[in-house]
């Protein structure tokens, strides 16, 4: 038993952070609020790091890395509030295409691996998803009906506006003719695993977002003075931030654990992913709240970076199953199916 990231994983996190620190500054995130398309340069930089290819097996030209490696990257994506669709393209769609083992998947997969395109996914009867308007490949993953992917024609999708202006949502207005590439049990399995990865990836981003918001609040509380001393010396501020820290400290291992169990295809993997999303959603929204409260009116301002992180948090906390939905999944597994702890 060894519960720690490897040296390679720490290095990976650092490499990603180094790139994002330079190319995904708060000003860049803010710029994404007034841009209809993603940054091609940033996506190319992520592709240089191999990010879109991480979960693609080597026989498909990918890097053959694990969900744990991916989660290490997504935590940094959250930390810098990166607007690019890493979760959708690299975490959800690329491994789904690879696992489909169909000839039709080869072409879009190769383009994703090459960093040429990004992807989006619609689960079951959803119509709205991140990166849907603008993605070159869209996957319709329906547990009971099958899995299909297609290149959306012009006009097939339209943009939707999120409270997080850097989050490019799209709606599918003209679905393609239904012609699934995968059906039956295999489709159910691919969909279930893709859903688990979606929840897990969002959880990892949320941990990164939460930590970044807490760091902002701590820095602010050290310098901002009231009643003649730094507000960070008041017990109320200390306790708000300490509570946020505790929640994040307990959420992060849950995310790493779920990633490892997922990569092992362990029996409790799906439950662990739901658990991770539930606790990461709560920890990150709690950190947002504590950070805003400690920032006071300044955090409420559009000119302060906090709101960029906070709105991403609000969106991701609800995307791919909010905390209550994920707890209901855990409840079904522990209360109804008599699954013990692994």
């Amino acid at each position, binding site marked *: 038993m060894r519960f720690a990231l490897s040296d390679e994983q720490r290095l990976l996190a650092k490499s990603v952070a180094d790139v994002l620190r330079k190319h995904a500054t708060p000003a860049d995130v803010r710029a994404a609020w007034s841009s209809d398309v993603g940054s091609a340069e940033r996506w190319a930089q992520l592709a240089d790091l191999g990010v879109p290819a991480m979960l693609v097996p080597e026989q498909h030209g990918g890097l053959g890395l694990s969900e744990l490696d991916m989660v290490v990257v997504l935590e940094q994506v959250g930390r810098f509030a990166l607007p690019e669709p890493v979760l959708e393209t690299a975490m959800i769609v690329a491994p789904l295409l690879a696992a489909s083992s169909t000839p039709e998947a080869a072409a879009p997969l190769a383009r994703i691996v090459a960093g040429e395109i990004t992807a989006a996914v619609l689960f079951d009867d959803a119509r709205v998803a991140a990166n849907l308007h603008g993605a070159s490949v869209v996957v319709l993953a329906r547990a009971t009906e099958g899995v299909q992917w297609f290149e959306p024609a012009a006009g097939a999708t339209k943009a*939707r506006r*999120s409270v997080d202006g850097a989050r490019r949502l799209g709606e599918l207005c003209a679905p393609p003719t239904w012609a699934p590439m995968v059906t039956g049990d295999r489709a159910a399995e691919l969909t279930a695993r893709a859903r688990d990865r979606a929840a897990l990836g969002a959880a990892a981003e949320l941990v990164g977002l939460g930590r970044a918001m807490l760091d902002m609040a701590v820095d602010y509380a050290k310098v901002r003075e009231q*009643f003649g001393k730094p507000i960070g010396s008041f017990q109320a501020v200390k306790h708000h931030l300490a509570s946020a820290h505790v929640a994040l400290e307990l959420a992060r291992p849950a995310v790493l654990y779920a990633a490892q169990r997922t990569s092992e295809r362990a029996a409790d993997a799906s439950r662990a992913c739901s658990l991770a999303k539930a606790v990461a959603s709560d920890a990150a929204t709690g950190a947002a709240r504590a950070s*805003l409260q400690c920032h006071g009116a*300044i955090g*409420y*301002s*559009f000119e302060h970076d906090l709101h960029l992180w906070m709105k991403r948090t*609000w969106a991701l906390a609800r995307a791919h199953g909010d905390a209550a939905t994920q707890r209901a999944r855990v409840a079904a597994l522990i209360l109804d199916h008599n699954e013990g702890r692994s």
Partner: protein
Amino acid sequence: MDLAYTAAEEAFRAEARAWLEANVPREPWPSGDTREGFALHRTWEKRLHAAGFAAVAWPKKYGGRDASLVEWLMFEEEYYRAGAPQRIAQNGIFLLAPTLFEFGTDEQKDRLLPRMAAADDVWAQAWSEPGAGSDLAGIRSRATRDAAGGGFRLSGQKTWCTRGAFCDWVFGLFRTDPAAERHKGLTYFMVPLSAPGVTVRGVGRLDGDEGFAEVFFDDVWVPDADVIGGVHQGWDVAMATTGSERGLTLRSPGRFTAAAERLVALYRSIHGQGTPVDTRVRDAVARAWIEAEQYRIFTLQTVTDVRDGRGLGAASSVNKIFWSELDVRLHETALDLLGERAELDDDAEAAGWMKGFEFALAGPIYAGTNEIQRNIVAERVLGLPRK
């Protein structure tokens, strides 16, 4: 204990309800915290004024209709129930006006209140400064006696002035005695934003509106007639306004009971007949509704206390803590009901709740953070030691 209203009170409610039904715009307006929305909302203020509803509790001669506190609560209840527009005049009518009634001269009241009620002058607060916050003691903006006499010269910077970029006047504290410590040596001024030397800069905010402003004062001349209360007495005057801001007047229960009813409607629209009973969601909705109702009931007691001449004092902190936190929970519950829809900024219903949530998040921060309010409750109500 008597929970019945008089016939006159019920008649007043009926009149207000009828007028609002006939006049409240059917389609939602753009936020009054944007430039175009502000202009539109000023026309609404003028219609309210024409009907005698701009400031119902004020004396008739200033543009009110001498309504009682109970009638004022009734009006607020009807106002929010009707989904009527945001009150851009609120800083003047609900914050400055009580201060003027208590500390203003007759000349000031006669000159300022009628124009305020008619929305000829719309007022903004100028409390915060880059280095000051909830305690206001760190105020560094200065006012010095004008050598020529008859007025002061103001210099410094104020921040987070709500809708300050579109208003006509601001009110706030300036340091008149630089040697005095913290809460002493401050004076309460009113300043037209058109005065020479005033610069206003709009600042965007969390909910996407640009209704915050920074206001810079560069040697701005203000006559003695625009000081409220005595020179160096600004702290006591401001406390009256702050008490008012977090007390009964700014947050009448109608705002929350109306939101609770909208929450019930949202629940019904999502959990219609035939959907399985979701006790978790029902519990959250009931809790939010109950808290709004609790605040309504609590306010009946508060109104009675005020009418009996028992001032609220530190108890107004209890008020502020409760409504600000119930407002956050109420909106959180609505967003939870909406689920993934909650983030959709182009879904009018979802966006309305999200904006409301963002606005609610300011509640525990502004008008003295809830941390400070809890200190006040602990020290002044429960009698715990300050140090």
